């Protein structure tokens, strides 16, 4: 009886502290710490520019180390434009690949395709760069840009073709984000419980109907997330773009014209950057870039996680 009283008073169960959790937890903290450190450092280094230009920095267009007047708008424009154009090109293909790769059962063809796509991801961007510079760009100049500008030139957007420019940069970017797009989309599609497909088929749905009415809807959010994630990659991609975008610090009036992106400006000019404001301005560009990608990525993560969670619940 006495025992019972004692027992009923012992409400919360005593948990011995888990040392292991603390150890690994602290080690793991390195990651967020690092992220913070990066942002803070850049912020610190960029302060001169930030103080000097303030918000103007984001909307002005001239970039003149001599007069120390810097504006980020053209770079921002180039970055965003190339990224979106690249996605527009990559998305349909990417989803198609994902659908094919997500098919159950392992056939040699599909295995081959899968490996291929992942190798596409493995190729260093600099290699894409050199290939784009010497192979892709000239080819697309001859066989895409010229014909298009001949027929649609009257629309200013399609005039004045050039070997190095927005369009070709987007083209190589599209190739480079394709693996990200497919990889994640495929995983999301694979996460769709096999039962769904079987049920649809058993109900007399064709492959096409099964895919479009059941599989893709289940994976919708995830695929969208994948797209955003790819967008993040496209925004941040440096080297390949730098090599084919043409390095012109302007807001072009044609998608074929040379331009600049945040990353490529930094890559090209940082080492020569001297003085006080110039490096700071470049670093501020970097800061802008980081913040943009950070927002985009978080958005993407939320989407991917939610979708895979749905899939798990449906299972």
């Amino acid at each position: 009886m006495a025992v019972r009283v004692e027992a009923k008073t012992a409400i919360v169960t005593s948990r011995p502290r888990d040392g292991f959790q603390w150890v690994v937890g602290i080690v793991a903290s390195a990651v967020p710490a690092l992220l913070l450190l990066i942002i803070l450092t850049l912020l610190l280094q960029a302060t001169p520019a930030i103080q000097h230009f303030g918000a103007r920095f984001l909307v002005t267009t001239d970039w003149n180390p001599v007069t120390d007047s810097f504006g980020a708008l053209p770079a921002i424009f180039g970055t965003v434009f190339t990224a979106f154009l690249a996605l527009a090109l990559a998305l349909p293909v990417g989803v198609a690949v994902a659908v094919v790769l997500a098919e159950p059962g392992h056939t040699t063809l599909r295995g081959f395709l899968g490996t291929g796509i992942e190798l596409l991801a493995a190729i260093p961007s600099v290699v894409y760069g050199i290939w784009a510079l010497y192979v892709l760009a000239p080819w697309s100049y001859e066989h895409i840009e010229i014909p298009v500008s001949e027929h649609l030139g009257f629309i200013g957007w399609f005039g004045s073709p050039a070997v190095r420019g927005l369009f070709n940069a987007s083209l190589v970017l599209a190739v480079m984000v394709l693996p990200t797009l497919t990889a994640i989309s495929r995983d999301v599609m694979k996460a769709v419980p096999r039962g769904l497909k079987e049920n649809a088929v058993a109900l007399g749905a064709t492959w096409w109907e099964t895919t479009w009415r059941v599989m893709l809807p289940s994976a919708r959010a995830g695929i969208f997330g994948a797209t955003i994630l790819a967008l993040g990659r496209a925004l941040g991609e440096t080297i390949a773009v730098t090599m084919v975008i043409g390095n012109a610090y302007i807001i072009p009036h044609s998608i074929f014209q040379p331009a600049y992106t945040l990353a490529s400006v930094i890559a090209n000019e940082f080492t020569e950057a001297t003085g006080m404001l110039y490096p700071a301005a470049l670093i501020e560009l970097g800061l802008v870039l980081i913040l943009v990608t950070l927002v985009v990525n978080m958005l993407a993560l939320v989407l991917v996680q939610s979708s895979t969670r749905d899939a798990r619940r449906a299972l």
Partner: protein
Amino acid sequence: MNRNHRRTYLSGAGLGLMYVLTLLALIPLGLVLWFTIAKGLPSVIHPQFLFNSELPPCEPRCPVVSQAGVGHAIVGTGIMVGIASLIAIPVGVLAGIYLAEYRVTPWSNWVRLASDVLVGTPSIAIGLFAYAFLVVPLHHFSAFSGAVALAVLMLPIVTRTTEGAVALIPNGLRESGLALGLPRWRVSLQLVLPAAAPGVITGALLSVARAAGETAPLLFTAFGAHILEFDPSGPMQALPVTVFKYALLPYKSLQDQAWGAALVLIVMVLSINLISRWILRRQIALAGQL
């Protein structure tokens, strides 16, 4: 009846279209590989290309001199990636274990978010960070700062892949271990981690491959050098940097040099990748049985 025929045919057509698009996606791969080999091989076939660290003489239209090589770049890449791995892999693995083993704690969610964001952070920005963090205080470029930049790049990759591999191990294994009266750390390190080893290794390899291929973080940290360097406290050449710098120069011989380096790089990276994929497949098969 009739309708069903139509549906069947439509479905077939759709499937066909999907496969066509997929093949389309593979064309760039083929082209990249083909041109890299075609343009790189002429340089690489000279055996000394891999060992010498000579620049080809660079007047316009001078012939490729057979002393030219990218040995220094290969060594540099090796050293920097090595150092980076030493920093990133242990931390990454432990962090990954933390994320997998303590999935639901609020802190682990923050860590996970951070590493995902870090994965998405542009490498050039990481380069800037390393520059501001190490080069500026030390007042000179150094391979070490480059290695740090690469490490920052690798860390989140290792973390997430490790987490994935460890999380792949069914919970029953942990519970069984704990139910036998084993302490948590033994279960995690001696039971779960070994089971997940192949996946973890894969993650490490992938991160290595990624680091080996990166240019942007090195541009203003390791900066590059034209001679064979072993001292990490000084500037150092790396393969991707070689490709980037020479490719943009208007000299045929240097461009060939770049193509050659590109070929070496791609072979390195792809082989690492294939190996890791092979390991990973075994991992998945294994985890399936557990």
